[in-house]
């Protein structure tokens, strides 16, 4: 903890975007206290109203408070994105580590399967999976996880292969460490910085993909407040009430931007030699 403050002072942009990201997390947690209205309460008599004291950003086509829905939407987006990134990193790394560590037939088999997945244009396949399984946020997560794990598998496999022949691993083995100990204690900690950078850079991408599938109607179902779906509902009123599509889009854009910049900052810290 003693080194934490100087670290943040040295990496100002990283610190700045961490704080912004933290604010987003706080918004999602505190949405019930911040939101002026119930995000699900419909009132057709108050549909499509402009800004007012009661509805700071106006109302949507069902008379729901746009600001409250946006605030609650933060939680939907963040939760789903973190869930997806975690699933992809854990599964991808586990499979990749198995392939890299065991080698031979396991490696060949896993790599052939991963080749098949790489041969799919990711979003096309994700749309098909999500569509076939039926529209729901969970199915969108499954679909995107199914097309994204291979990336982590490939990277972690090559990192493990490069690490497992190092002297300190041999030393640990000779010292009597069991296989799982070697993997958990010596290999994973060494390959994790690269994977963490990858995961951090992927948060923005995954968030965009989730909201894109929701926009198509494959993800969040009404009345869940979700930015992509809100945008898709709002576009029908573009001629008269453009804010219905402008605000949710701005929410997605800002959030993705913050996480992209955070990922960039993290990469500069963990991998400073490379020019980007």
């Amino acid at each position, binding site marked *: 903890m003693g080194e934490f403050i100087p670290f943040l002072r040295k990496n100002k942009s990283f610190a700045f975007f961490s704080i912004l990201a933290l604010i987003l997390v706080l918004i999602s947690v505190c949405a019930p206290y911040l939101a002026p209205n119930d995000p699900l309460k419909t009132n057709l008599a108050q549909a499509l109203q402009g800004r007012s004291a009661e509805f700071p950003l106006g109302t949507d086509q069902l008379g729901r408070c746009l600001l409250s829905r946006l605030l609650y939407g933060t939680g939907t987006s963040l939760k789903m994105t973190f869930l997806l990134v975690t699933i992809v990193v854990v599964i991808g790394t586990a499979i990749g580590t198995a392939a890299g560590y065991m080698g031979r037939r396991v490696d060949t088999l896993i790599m052939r399967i991963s080749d098949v997945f790489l041969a799919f244009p*990711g979003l096309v396949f994700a749309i098909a999976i999500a*569509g076939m399984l039926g529209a729901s946020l969970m199915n969108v997560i499954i679909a995107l996880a199914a097309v994204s794990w291979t990336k982590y598998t490939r990277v972690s496999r090559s990192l493990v292969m490069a690490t497992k022949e190092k002297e300190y691993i041999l030393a640990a083995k000779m010292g009597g460490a069991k296989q799982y100990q070697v993997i958990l204690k010596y290999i994973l900690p060494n390959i994790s910085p690269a994977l963490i950078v990858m995961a951090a850079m992927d948060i923005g991408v995954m968030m965009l993909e989730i909201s894109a599938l929701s926009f*198509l109607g494959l993800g969040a179902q009404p009345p869940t407040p979700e930015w992509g779906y809100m945008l898709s509902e709002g576009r029908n009123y573009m001629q008269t009430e453009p804010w219905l599509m402008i605000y949710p889009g701005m929410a997605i854009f800002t959030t993705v931007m913050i996480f992209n910049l955070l990922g960039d900052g993290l990469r500069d810290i963990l991998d400073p030699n490379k020019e980007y």
Partner: protein
Amino acid sequence: MRGARNKLRKYIMKRLLQLIPVLLGITFLTFTLTYLSPGDPAELMLTATGVTPTPQLVEQVREGMGLNKPFLTRYGEWLTGIIQGDFGVSYKYGRPVSEVIIARLPATLKLAGTSLVLMMIVALSLGIISALYRNKGIDYLIRILSFVGISMPSFWLGLLLMYLFSVKLKILPIMGTSDWTSILLPTVTLAMGMASKYTRQLRVAILEEIGQDYVIGAKARGLSGRSILLKHILQKSLIPIVTLLGLSVGSLLGGAAIVETIFVWPGVGQMAVEAIFSRDYPLIQGYVVWMAVIYVLVNMVVDISYHRLDPRIHLEKGG
């Protein structure tokens, strides 16, 4: 020379053979998806054609569609069909799937093509400028713009452009394909995200090359900056660019589904999204397999073109 050509032919044959397990995997996954999806295809088909599904009728159709056979037998029969170009009949259109897809494909290819060209022009020019004026004002501006570009949801960009040019300024058609101007907004929407990504990557690729010994050597020999850039650096940076082009076809095909839906562009992407909501399984299967085959073939051509760009890359290694 003849030896080289023989080698190339051999390599292409080898790559084509390697496609077989990949295509088997793709078709198997696609088929399994239908199997996992909720809903009875027989019932769906009846409903889609406007018939009320009674239990006897459903059973009859199930038998007729071969749905009562074991999974692998059904996969085998389906696969035999698609090898002959027969993806079954679309529930919604009542026409062969391949026919529906082929009718829709030109619109998507046109949109993907114009987007690819726009993306290349933007990424190449901005990437080069950004690298040459590294850490100057214009470099920062381009980097900020590219950051905005990669964080921007394409569907939002599309709607904003539509709002600005079609609703407010009324200078472009709002959707559909009325005349040539209708392709402008979908193209920009589809190209911008990728152009931003590739501008960044191109900048990095060029900066890496600039630091190489041969560039310093060329400078020492008195070659002008511009001729070094055009003759040496760009030629070397072409390989990562071509790789990106191949991979970007995947994003283009996927992104097209979103952009086509927004602008009601009559391509395969919009068709696929509609097919999903009408639970038209054969059409979705056909769409996935067609897109995957296009993607795989494009990337194979890309791999082969490496050799032309840089003869030092051994073909065997590429596989």
